[in-house]
């Protein structure tokens, strides 16, 4: 099975900086919403895959890594909008307009109509 390295949210920027320094490419960022928010950052170098996992409470904030990996803004806008993750200081923040979705699901499962 693949390895998932668990880190704290405060270590994210230093880990991402090290990955960039080691010539890893950011392959994706995903979020799974269960009891907590489960973020997985995947980095690829040649054909080696490294997964970094961070668990967040629903109201916790996390820093954007778009200052390190410029193209992370796409993934971050996506999970901010679809999962409600509070990502701070995204280089290009669409503020909830990245996807033109009509409904937003809150953490307790309620569905609200947008616009």
């Amino acid at each position, binding site marked *: 099975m693949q390895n998932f390295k668990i880190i704290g949210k405060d270590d994210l920027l230093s880990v991402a900086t090290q990955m960039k320094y080691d010539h890893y490419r950011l392959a994706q960022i995903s979020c799974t919403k269960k009891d907590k928010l489960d973020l*997985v950052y995947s980095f690829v170098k040649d054909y080696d895959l490294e997964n970094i996992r961070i668990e967040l409470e629903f109201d916790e904030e996390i820093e954007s890594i778009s200052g390190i990996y410029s193209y992370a803004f796409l993934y971050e806008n996506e999970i901010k909008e679809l999962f409600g993750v509070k990502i701070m200081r995204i280089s290009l923040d669409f503020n909830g307009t990245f996807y033109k979705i009509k409904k937003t699901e809150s953490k307790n499962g309620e569905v609200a109509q947008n616009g």
Partner: protein
Amino acid sequence: MGNRTIVPFGPQHPVLPEPIHLDLVLEDETVIEAIPSIGFVHRGLEKLVEKKDFQQYVYVAERICGICSFMHGMGYCMAVENVMDLKLPDRAEFLRTIWAELSRIHSHLLWLGLLADAVGFESLFMHCWRLREEILDLFDMTTGGRVIFSVCKVGGVRKDIDAEKLKKIVEVLSNMDSSLRSITKIFLSDTSIISRMSGVGVLSPEEAFDLGAVGPMARASGIVVDDRLLGYGAYPHVKFEVQTATEGDCYARTKVRINEIFESISIIKQCVSLMPSDTAIDVPVKGNPDGEYFARLEQPRGEVVYYVKGNGTKFLDRMRVRTPTFANLPPLLHTLKGVDLADVPVLVLTIDPCISCTER
């Protein structure tokens, strides 16, 4: 400083079969910035995994995209099979590889046709799609479907290809060779096509890496990256070269895709000649997935990442797909800077955008 204007490009545009919007900030006729806007047809297919069990979801995954539908099903199945520790029969791996490479040929021919259309070469567009039609006929013959095949399942494939049909595949591909060479020669040597593409939208190797480019977009900038080298399917058993170019412009991206068509034909012919004689094409699937896995495979547009997380029930906790077009948007935005407005449609097309994939 010249006059600054913002020109909206899309979501409806002749070169865009699917909706994506770019705000092009122009200084006179030159693009100085492009701001993307997607999500016009977001379908929430990832969330649908909460309602469909892990076997049913193969049908959903196939519908993420109509061009590489087989590879979406295959990527999802690979991820689940890795979680469940399933080892497929060799014949199933070879069959999957044949269908995957046929999908690559069909996708690249479709794209070449669209490119010909974008540069105003209507007859070339028709010739490309005529050849693509022959690949669709092979899909029809081997799977019963031309767009969505539903032959991939967790644990293997649903249909075998008998010796007669394998022979027919090789025959069709061999007969296509001369037509393919004469058509692709036009793309690579016609003065007007070269003048539209050469030196336009240049992406250096450093930029390609820094912006996370994948697939032909990265390979055209000299980066040797191809997930088929990871060794899934039948790829460890066949010989193929990763097609690259160094120019990093629209012409290089076209050249890489054209060379990949011939490489795919070679891979299919090798698969047919090496096809294992055992008759098993699937393995029994017992239990439910419990664990998580990232599967990566090389689609026509580049690396796709499939993530599945199972909880021991028949419903997955999460299914996530990162499509190649999503990864290639930042390189596109970068290459748009500095090009003439008239070159934007061709440049947008050379990333081979699949918005259907992006809007999964």
